[in-house]
């Protein structure tokens, strides 16, 4: 997947932050890259269609827009699919991963307030009978601010 043309790479690498907040942002980007607005739009559409670009949009800081935590469970293998589905069923769960560890199910719970986050964790514990390890963020040394794709 390293065969993207340079313009596409510049669009992905150069605009992960500071996307222009002006009425015609794609025209601003186009001017900076020395191409026209319609070319920028059509490249972005292609990148999105091919799956290389998830979207152009806002990345929210979960701890400032409500409350969130990372939680983990040690689920017996035979029950993993069922419990994972149950956990994913909560609208408040936005990431859910199976990982190789004794704690094999990892998920992020986000809600408008901390009380609801704790309620979700308690409900998962109660309904599954599996303890939930609550690992809230205490300090961020690096947030996801985008990172260079490093094409080769």
């Amino acid at each position: 997947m390293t065969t993207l043309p340079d313009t596409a790479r510049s669009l992905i690498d150069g605009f992960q932050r500071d996307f222009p907040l002006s009425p015609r942002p794609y025209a601003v980007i186009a001017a900076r890259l020395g191409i026209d607005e319609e070319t920028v739009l059509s490249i972005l559409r292609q990148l999105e269609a091919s799956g290389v670009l998830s979207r152009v949009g806002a990345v929210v800081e979960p701890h400032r827009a409500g409350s969130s935590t990372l939680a983990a469970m040690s689920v017996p293998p035979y029950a993993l699919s069922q419990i994972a589905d149950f956990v994913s069923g909560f609208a408040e769960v936005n990431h859910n991963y199976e990982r190789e560890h004794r704690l094999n199910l990892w998920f992020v719970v986000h809600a408008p307030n901390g009380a609801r986050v704790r309620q979700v964790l308690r409900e998962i514990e109660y309904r599954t009978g599996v303890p939930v390890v609550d690992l809230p963020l205490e300090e961020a040394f690096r947030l996801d601010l985008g990172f260079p794709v490093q094409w080769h």
Partner: protein
Amino acid sequence: MSSLDPIDRRIVEATQAGLPFEARPYHAVAEKIGIEADELMARLRRMLEKGVIRRIGAVPNHYALGWTANGMSVWDVEDDALPALGPEVGGLPFVSHCYRRPRKPPLWPYNLFAMVHGRQADEVTAKVEQIARLLGPASRRHDVLTSTRILKKTGLRL
């Protein structure tokens, strides 16, 4: 702490899903929400300043770009050493997220999380070794949790 009013919430929901690829994307979103484009942009700017929104921009799908290997490296770092070492680990170019979280002994002895990305598993291993060298004896033990399955991944619901 949610300082977002209902309009902010709708803006965040609409814009984290992705801006439309048309000449005036903010106008299109504003129209959907029922506000003026100027107000939409002013509110986005305010949320960026307040840190509610980390960034607005292209969100690449690293997986589709060949970054198929990732490892959640976790470290048991001496509490006294963490304030100095945490930012150093967070500053490494291949670390996308780096957080301090509580230990929950005996099941969970680690207090530092650093998400490491690579194109192959051995690249992740090499980068984790680089972190180990940086932390030195301040790290008593560590582990790398690779994800075997993504079961759910969506934007935030506010």
